[in-house]
């Protein structure tokens, strides 16, 4: 059976001719050459060059740095949460009996007061 360029299987006659046209001689000499080169560069070949070593360390290094940043943020939030101003609300400030400390707390409070409480306190005083 004659082969066709449309054939989806390898063409034996063409393949054989191509193989013969490309066929190298003395493969053993070539193998010896490759192995000699491999032995010469044995250590560097197996361990890679400096960039490869650096790139190998890059990923774990970045992961460690990210973990440190996350930990630092978590610590900052937990420590920062104990600020005295955050525990005092504007309502507490207005309900204080001492006018001076109430004013100080009113100025220091981060949020605006509840209008109902302000009016109620004004009415009582």
């Amino acid at each position, binding site marked *: 059976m004659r082969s066709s360029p449309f054939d989806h299987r390898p063409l034996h006659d063409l393949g054989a*001719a191509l193989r013969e046209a490309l066929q*190298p001689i003395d493969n053993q000499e070539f*193998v010896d050459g490759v192995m000699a080169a491999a032995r010469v560069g044995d250590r560097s070949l197996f361990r890679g060059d400096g960039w490869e070593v650096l790139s190998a360390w890059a990923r774990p290094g970045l992961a460690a740095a990210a973990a440190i940043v996350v930990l630092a943020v978590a610590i900052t939030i937990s420590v920062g949460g104990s600020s005295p101003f955050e525990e005092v609300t504007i309502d507490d400030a207005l309900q204080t009996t001492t006018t001076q400390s109430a004013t100080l707390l009113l100025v220091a409070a981060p949020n605006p007061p509840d209008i109902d409480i302000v009016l109620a306190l004004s009415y009582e005083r």
Partner: protein
Amino acid sequence: MEESILAARATAGDLEAFGQLVERYTPQARRVARAVLADPDDGDDAAQDAFLSALRHLGRYDPSRPFGPWLMRIVANAAADRRRRRKVRAADELSEATSGGGPGPDVETDRWAFLAAFRRALALLPERQRLAVTLFDVEGYSHAQIAEILDIPQGTVRSDVFHARRRLRTALVTWQHHWKEEVV
């Protein structure tokens, strides 16, 4: 021994295991490199570069997949890199020799002449077609594997193999007819 085991041992520093892989794939790697580079010495240099590069990067080889396509990709890249560095197209080196049509079957009838003509026909193909037809018809890789090796779609591989076959067949059939006439 299985190639994945040899590769694992070579990765661990076993040069003997690497040597077995080199012996197993030397003819194929040299043929594929020669399909890219017309000069056999250049082809061998590229094939050697490829083996040493493979040794350096064995850690990237996935042992669950065949070793051949992974290595052939390195070989094809090494050969293409070498050709680009030289900035000499393989076909250019031979274009002068083929401009007059080359020696016909009525002038030289021996096998050497046929191979020379066939090599010229091969060298005139685009690089990717040379690689595709060599990997398919000589080395027996599938279209899917060649697509992976050359990093191109499977449809492109089929097209490249088809066009390369059509042009090479012209050279082959000419000589086959001649040989038949010689026998008769």
